[in-house]
Structures are given as structure tokens and as C-alpha cells.
């Protein structure tokens, strides 16, 4: 388990204000059953996010905006979807049958082709500056006051550490799981009875209180947040101990991404607020087509099964689903059969909570080299995510008397995408 401190001077002075239109607490329901019966328990609970991050930059031409038969179209064909008139790449046959749950934004121009800049812009809705990721914002404003899981969990198979919480405080920072492996030291040390552990915790809090009296709360809050999240996870270690059911593995796939998505389902069923699953391997500067065959072949069925399960459990209406990258890939095919970084005209897919399903927003030109209609950037998307979740992104974070706009005031939500 890797813990991102994400701690700034202002971290610990954020006043909690209820300016959320749709945030709600709700009763907690813990279940590992994985059955649709969970649906009743989670219905009416707080809103959440499922982020599926296709790391490296998935090709829009091999996914959401195919251009077969054009100069840069590549070898793959477009297939019809469950939405009349909407076509996506043939590499996504399972997803195609579920597009009535999703919408596509085909007109993103980030004006950057850099991995880090693209990733930060897509997560923060700002090109620069210390601002929280959308997952941390969700944790801050959507997580129940007594949430039994960390507010922002990221399941990945390798580590990119980002400062995700900015001034929102350490407890809203991303907690990273390296796949489905249990975080280290999740169990109490051998020979330490639970009562002794409780006494130890009480002693630590006593020391904290004394330290705070002389040094302020900020110095200890990060440590407190870590301990609290560790405690929450210790009480939920069965998440990691219980192997997935064979029938689930059959549906999701036995690969890392399949197992990671099954863990994501369990976390969402148990009221995690934002769960991000990263699927690696899209930075295809060489062999773009063979790699997209492999990677999207893995993504397509697994993601579709997860979408089905959220839908069947009645969770989709309260879960914003984001399938995104840091940018797309160049229309031009290089000499290695690769496509390079391309933030100029690319796509993402969104669905679930607050999103109008079956829509196509924007358009690229015939060759996919530029946005032709309804250009948006990550600032617009950021507003859209939050407003879909019922968070008024035009309001401010209130930080010790200072107001910081939640979304970039220069951008607006994509209103036609909001349900």
C-alpha cells in the first residue's frame, strides 16, 4: 500500500460546508456477497465514481472515434452499438452492446501532448497549480461523515504517485493498492491482542493531543488520517483474503485487470466513494494496432462485466463512470506502426450518475486531425463530472477564510451531457 500524503499548509484548515446539491450520507451497507441483493442496500446511498484510467493514452481511433478507410484510420473497422447511429471501434464489441449506458465526448483538445501535463489537467481540471483531483474532491464532498472506507482508492499494478488532495487534506488523498494484494501489515502484529491495540491507539491519540496543543493540528492530521485509513482497511481485510468466485473470474477474466475490477466492484458495493482502476499499456509508439488489440481485448469484456454488475445492482444511477486517459494518440501512423501522443482531438466515455446516456458530444474532422465541433478541454470535463454528481462546481472550496473555485471559472460544464 502506498500512501500519498498530499499535504499542504492549507490542508488542515478546510471548513466543511454543505454546499453540495446531491451529497448524502446514508446508511452504510457492507457486504461481500457480490450479489444483486446488494442493490437494495446501496440504493439511495451516496454518489460515487468509478474511474477506469487507460494509462498512456488510448487511441481514440481504435476506441471511441474510429475513422475506417481514411488516411489515418488504421486497420480496424467501426461497428454499430446499442445506440442507433453510434459506432465505435470493432475492438470494443462488448462495450458496443452497452453504449446505451454511456456517452462519448469526441472533441477534447487539451493543447498538450505531455503525459504528466495531460494527466494532471484531466484529473484537476486545471492546467497548472495545486488543485485536488476529482477523486479527492469526491472524497471531500461525497464521502459519508463516518465512511468506513477511504474516500479515494486507486487500484493499479504499478506506482505513479500523485499529490491528489492538494489543500483538501490528507484524508482525501488517494490511497493506492498495488493490484489486489493486501496492503502490508494489515493484520495486527502477532501476539498483540485487540484490546492492547486499542490501548496503543488511545495512547497515540493522547500524545497527538498534547503535541497539537503546542504545534497546531496540521502536524498530526496527516498521521491521523493514515492511521484512520489503516484501521478502516484492517477491519475490511476480508476484501483481500477472500478469493473471487470462479464464475466472476470467468466473466471478468483471470488477468490483473479482471481481478482489479472485481475488487473495485466490492469496494463500490461497500460504499467506497471514488474507486479508480488503472489499466496500463496504451502508450503505443510502436505496434499500436497489435497492442490495442491486446489491451482493449482485455479491457472490453472486463469493463463490460463491471458495468453490467453496477447496472444490475442498481448502482449505475448513483455511480459516475469515467473511461479516460491523459490524451489520445496521433492520427498519423509512424514508421513503427505506432501512434504518438495527441491531446489535440481525442475522446473519452462517460456514463452513469447524472450523465445523459447514448449521447455523442462534439466531432472531429474527417481525418481526425482536429476538433470540428464543440471543442472542450479538461476544465469543461471537470465541471461536468462534478455537476453530474450533484456538486456545484461553480462554488468555492472555503479554506480558512480563503475561497478557491472548485472548477476553473473560465470553463463550464458540458450541459447537454448532463441528465
Amino acid at each position, binding site marked *: 500500500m502506498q500512501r500519498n500524503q498530499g499535504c499542504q499548509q492549507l490542508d488542515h484548515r478546510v471548513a466543511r460546508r454543505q454546499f453540495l446539491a446531491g451529497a448524502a450520507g446514508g446508511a452504510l451497507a457492507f457486504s461481500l456477497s457480490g450479489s444483486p441483493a446488494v442493490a437494495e442496500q446501496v440504493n439511495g446511498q451516496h454518489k460515487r465514481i468509478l474511474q477506469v484510467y487507460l494509462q*498512456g493514452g488510448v487511441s481514440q481511433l481504435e476506441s471511441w472515434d474510429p475513422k*475506417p*478507410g481514411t*488516411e489515418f484510420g*488504421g*486497420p*480496424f*473497422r467501426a461497428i454499430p452499438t446499442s445506440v442507433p447511429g453510434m459506432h465505435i471501434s470493432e475492438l470494443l464489441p462488448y462495450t458496443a452492446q452497452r453504449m446505451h449506458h454511456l456517452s462519448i465526448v469526441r472533441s477534447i483538445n487539451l493543447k498538450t501532448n505531455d503525459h504528466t501535463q495531460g494527466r494532471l489537467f484531466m484529473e484537476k481540471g486545471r492546467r497548472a497549480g495545486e488543485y485536488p483531483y476529482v477523486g479527492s474532491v469526491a472524497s471531500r464532498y461525497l464521502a459519508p461523515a463516518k465512511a468506513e472506507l477511504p474516500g479515494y482508492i486507486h487500484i493499479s*499494478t*504499478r506506482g505513479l504517485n500523485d499529490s491528489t488532495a492538494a489543500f483538501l487534506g490528507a484524508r482525501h488523498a488517494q490511497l493506492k493498492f498495488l493490484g489486489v494484494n493486501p496492503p502490508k501489515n494489515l493484520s495486527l502484529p502477532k501476539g498483540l491482542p485487540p484490546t492492547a491495540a486499542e490501548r496503543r491507539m488511545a495512547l497515540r491519540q493522547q500524545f497527538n493531543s498534547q503535541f497539537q496543543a503546542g504545534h497546531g493540528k496540521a502536524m498530526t492530521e496527516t498521521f491521523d488520517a493514515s492511521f484512520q485509513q489503516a484501521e478502516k482497511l484492517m477491519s475490511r481485510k476480508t476484501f483481500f483474503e477472500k478469493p473471487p468466485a470462479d464464475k466472476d473470474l470467468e466473466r471478468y477474466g483471470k488477468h*490483473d485487470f479482471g481481478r482489479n475490477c472485481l475488487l473495485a466492484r466490492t469496494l463500490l458495493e461497500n460504499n467506497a466513494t471514488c474507486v479508480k482502476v488503472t489499466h*496500463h*499499456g496504451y*502508450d*503505443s*509508439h*510502436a*505496434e499500436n*494496432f*497489435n*497492442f490495442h*488489440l*491486446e*489491451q482493449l481485448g482485455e479491457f472490453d469484456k472486463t469493463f463490460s462485466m463491471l458495468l453490467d454488475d453496477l447496472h444490475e445492482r442498481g448502482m449505475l444511477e448513483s455511480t459516475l463512470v469515467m473511461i479516460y486517459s491523459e490524451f489520445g494518440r496521433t492520427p498519423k*501512423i*509512424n*514508421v*513503427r506502426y*505506432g501512434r504518438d501522443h495527441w491531446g489535440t482531438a481525442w475522446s473519452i466515455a462517460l456514463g452513469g450518475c447524472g450523465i445523459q446516456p447514448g449521447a455523442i458530444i462534439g466531432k472531429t474532422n474527417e481525418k481526425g486531425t482536429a476538433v470540428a465541433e464543440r471543442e472542450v478541454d479538461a476544465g469543461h470535463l471537470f465541471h461536468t463530472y462534478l455537476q453530474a454528481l450533484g456538486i456545484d462546481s461553480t462554488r468555492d472550496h472555503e479554506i480558512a477564510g480563503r475561497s478557491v473555485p472548485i472548477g476553473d471559472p473560465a470553463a463550464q460544464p458540458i450541459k447537454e451531457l448532463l441528465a
Partner: protein
Amino acid sequence: MSVNNSEAVAASKPVLNDAVEARKPGVDYDAIDPVKTHKVAELKHTVPLTSCRVDPTGRFIVAGAEDLDIHVWDYESKTKRTLKGHTSWVRSFDFSADGNTLYSACWGGDIKAWNLLDTEPKSKLTIQAHQGSARWVRLSPDQTKLATCGNDLLVKLWDLENGKLLQSFAGHERHVYAVEFHPDGKHLVSQDLMGVIHVWDLHSGKKSRSIDASVMTGYDKKFAADMGGARDLQFSPDGSELATAGITNVVNSFAGVQDPIIMLFDWKTGQEKAKLKPDKTFQGIAWGVRYHPDGFLIGAGADRSGKGELWFRKPDESEFYHTMKLPAAARGLDLLNDARHLIVAHSHGAVHIYRMTEEEKQKQV
């Protein structure tokens, strides 16, 4: 081995109409010497090429490209025709023995047959062969069957007369990249992404054995993906050896950082006979391999920089003895029936014709 010198001469001067040959006395301009290989003609297309083939009689050169068409040049006149009908890129070709019929396989999963004697050939047979890409097509030695393979993990055998499926071979666990008939006509070999080569007995319809080419694949830990597969596959004319071209030593496959390799296997034992690699400064993919009738082996590849190379190996040697630099990545290789000319499909959109003899210098009148 017949030598069609008139065609070769025609190919050597497609643009210099006023040139005369400058022949040195005592030089045999038909003697085959790979070290003397030189370009004699260029057949241009407008987009990068993906593959090429020449028919067994040396009349037609065909190429696939990063478009949906098949590009056919008449070798003698250099005139070009375009065959339309595929819905995706064409990656693999084969010809009937008389050279009149072309078979093509596309990423969309279709196999098509074309009569090249027609002025404007239309597809005379279409087989929806595979779910996902049809990566390879080969005609049986007896000219009655087609073998194909694809991303549905299957190898299939088709009746050429009616396009009906004769046999389907399951056993590969990853995408199947190439398939080839053994010259005995009784066996098929197929190689997949992971370097698994299966040998299929056409009589029993079952796998008879496997050959380990796992060195030709690599798992990129950073990107969590496999890369590998046969990019070309060919038996030696006597059937005693199998050559396969591809990659090895994957370092960063997403940036094209891996080594090209051509592996040779003894057909009888399945044992590895050679692992041929170009100079270590050349990183990329081996896209072509051919056995020359004189016994030497020819390879072609693409460096990650976009340059290409031709490699030549004498029988039983463990290294290439000659390398020829090419101006652009080589994505396909074939040998003309005159045994003196090679064709290479290049990433810059042209087929180059190379001649493996002393160059006949040209001078202006």
C-alpha cells in the same frame, strides 16, 4: 534456375531512357552475389506499405498498404492496378502456381481470391475466415486448399473450389500470426504471439507436436503487455528447415526497443538450428525471410528509427555475413523466380526492386 535478363534490364532503367549500359569486360552481370545487391527500380504508392509478394512466374508484384486496397504492378511494364474490396488493411498474400490467381487476407478477417488476368479484377471468392483479423493465408502445395490463421486463435483449412471449411485447428492460446504448409503437403505449422509453434497433421486433423520459439516473445513489465509473433514464416525448399522472423529481447516494446531475430528450426527434430540477429545497433522487427535457391538465406527488417536492412546468411553459418542498409523500414520481402531480384515493401510507400548481381553502371549519351 532460369534467368530473365530482359526483365531485369527493363527494371534497371525505368527512368533513364537515354542511358546506355556501361559493361566492364569480363564481368558476369548475371552471377548472383548478395554483396553486390543494389536497387534497380522503385514502384511508388501514396501511403506506407505493409506487405508484398511476387507471383511464381514473375509477372505481378502485389503490395498491401495502410489503406483498404491491394496494389498490383506489372513487373515488365510497371503499370499499376488497384484491387478494391477488402474492408481493412491487407497483410498477407499468396499466389497460385501459375501466378494467375492472388489470395489475400485482411485485418477484417476476410480472405479473397482475385484473377489477375482480368483487366480490372474483382474478388471472385470471399471467405469470412476469422473473427477478428485474418493474419495469414497460404495455398497448399497441391493447389486445392487454403490455410489461414487469425485472432480467433484458430488455424483453418478451406476448400479452394467452394470456399468451404475443411478443418479447424484449435490449440493456440494467443493470436496466431502466421501459418505455412510443409512442402510434403501433409503438415501445417502455425506460430502465435507467444512463440508457440504448433505442427498440425492434416490427415488426423490433430496437433502432432509443438516447437518452442518462446525466445520470440517478450513481456513488457512496464506496460503489462506481450509482444511477439511470427512476422514471416517459410520452409526451406527441401522442407528440412523452418525459418521464422520476428523479435526478441524485448526492452521497451512500446517504443520499439527490441531486437529483430530470424530463427531456424530443424523440421525433423524441432530443435533450434540458428538464432540470427543483425548488429545490435539495429533495433526493431524482422519482417521477412526467404530461402534462396542457391542455399543462402535472406532477411529483411525495420529499425525503430525508420531505416531498414537486408541481411544475408550463408548455409550453416551462425551470423549474417552481409548487411545492406535500406533507406526506409522493410515491411515485407519476396524473391523473384529469376533468383536475382528481391522485392521489399517499404514504410515510405514504395516497393523497391533489388538485384543481387554486379551493378551495370549507366552513363548518359
